[in-house]
């Protein structure tokens, strides 16, 4: 008899993956509520396709690839809306600035610079830097060749640095970005 319901062990594993899924989603879309929406979509898809998951594989890599697909679908649907809502990005900056233990000068710019990267560069950079995936795992998540991961991570680093070195007035840049989008 086919088993349509995900078993509890799988659900447990999925539950364990939530914190890292949330971190990835947050780094991708910045806004906490929007990021959790993405996580929820990811969890629902994972449960719907749980029988496709090969237990010998790393669940996190599998769910991250689902999150990537869900994010891309969402972008296609909302092609009108910019991924980085400038107001939310500002609110985010305020929150960071209010955190006393943080190097404000660096990190204000960091989020701004990150937001400016194309999603094609941002995703591999985050997967490798923050999620600490190997290039092979990152390639699996994004379904691109390892060589492409390598070049995109490298270009993302260079671009991020250019923004960090050159962005004197990040907020005004964000505004102009909004107009373009």
């Amino acid at each position, binding site marked *: 008899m086919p088993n349509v319901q995900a078993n509890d*062990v799988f659900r447990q594993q999925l539950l364990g993956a939530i914190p890292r899924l949330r971190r990835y989603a947050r780094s991708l879309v910045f806004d906490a509520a929007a990021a959790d929406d993405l996580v*929820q979509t990811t969890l629902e898809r994972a449960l719907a396709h749980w029988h496709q998951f090969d237990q010998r594989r790393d669940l996190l890599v599998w769910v991250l690839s689902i999150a990537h697909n869900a994010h891309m679908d969402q972008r296609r649907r909302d092609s009108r809306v910019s991924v980085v809502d400038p107001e939310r990005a500002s609110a985010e900056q305020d929150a960071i600035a209010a955190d006393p233990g943080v190097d404000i000068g660096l990190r204000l710019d*960091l989020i701004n610079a990150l937001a400016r990267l194309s999603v094609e560069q941002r995703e591999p950079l985050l997967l490798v*830097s*923050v999620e600490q995936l190997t290039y092979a795992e990152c390639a699996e998540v994004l379904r691109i060749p390892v060589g492409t991961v*390598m070049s995109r991570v490298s270009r993302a680093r260079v671009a991020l640095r250019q923004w960090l070195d050159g962005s004197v007035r990040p907020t005004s840049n964000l505004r102009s970005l909004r107009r373009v989008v």
Partner: protein
Amino acid sequence: MNMDTQRPDDELISAWLDGEVEGADGERVQAWLRDHPDDAARVRLWAADRDALRARMASVLDEPVPERLSQAVWRRSGGSSGVRGAWLQAAMAAGLLLAGALFGAAWVRGTPGELRLSSAPRWTQRAAVAHAVYAPEVRHPVEVNVREGDAAQQREQEQHLSRWLTRRVSVPVKLFDLREQGFELVGGRLLPDGAGPSAQLMYQDGAGQRVTIYLRKADQDTPAAFRFERQGDLGLFYWVEGDCGFALVGPQSRERLLALAQSIYQQDQRTASAPSR
């Protein structure tokens, strides 16, 4: 002369920074950076950006998981058979062994209609930190050492340890027997936890590898289920049984830790159902 050395491109240098380049290419990158301080400075900035990104996002892991997300995981589409029946069926269909039975049983019993879930609670981080601090200690790994002296003294120390920790932590602290898994009890200590004290029991195998069991009075928001997570090099199984939160911490493989956790869980069950001696 270095002038003949071909400059490694950004892709190679960046991949090297991510630990993806080894062998001759890796040496070439290292040699180049050694001789070219400008490029080395650039790579240091990349590394700083990477670390800053990591640090910036780290706090998300500590946030409690919103209820709607944990509920999404446990929501069942259609089907109205009881949880236990559905689980048994699923477990059998998937050919699950004892691990599944343990997860499932702990879970089913821990769900009185409503699910209490959160992300890895902070106390498990304290358990991991406590392990990291005391497990490498050579001379003073524990406060009460049960391996000193002759057999009678050891026995006395064991009883003292169990009584003392039970009194201070306000949950029954049993000294689990993990010899079947190759681990001998070293002893235990009292530690500060969130609201009150917690206990740490330390075990050691023949090779000197240690695991610790962290016990504390359970919070309301601690998940009842059996869960596993990694904190750096350490693996951590944690669960709640009755009033007591357990965290098993060690550098061992997940499978080895699971076997230990199962043994602890079963011994706890046995003593819980039998009158204490």
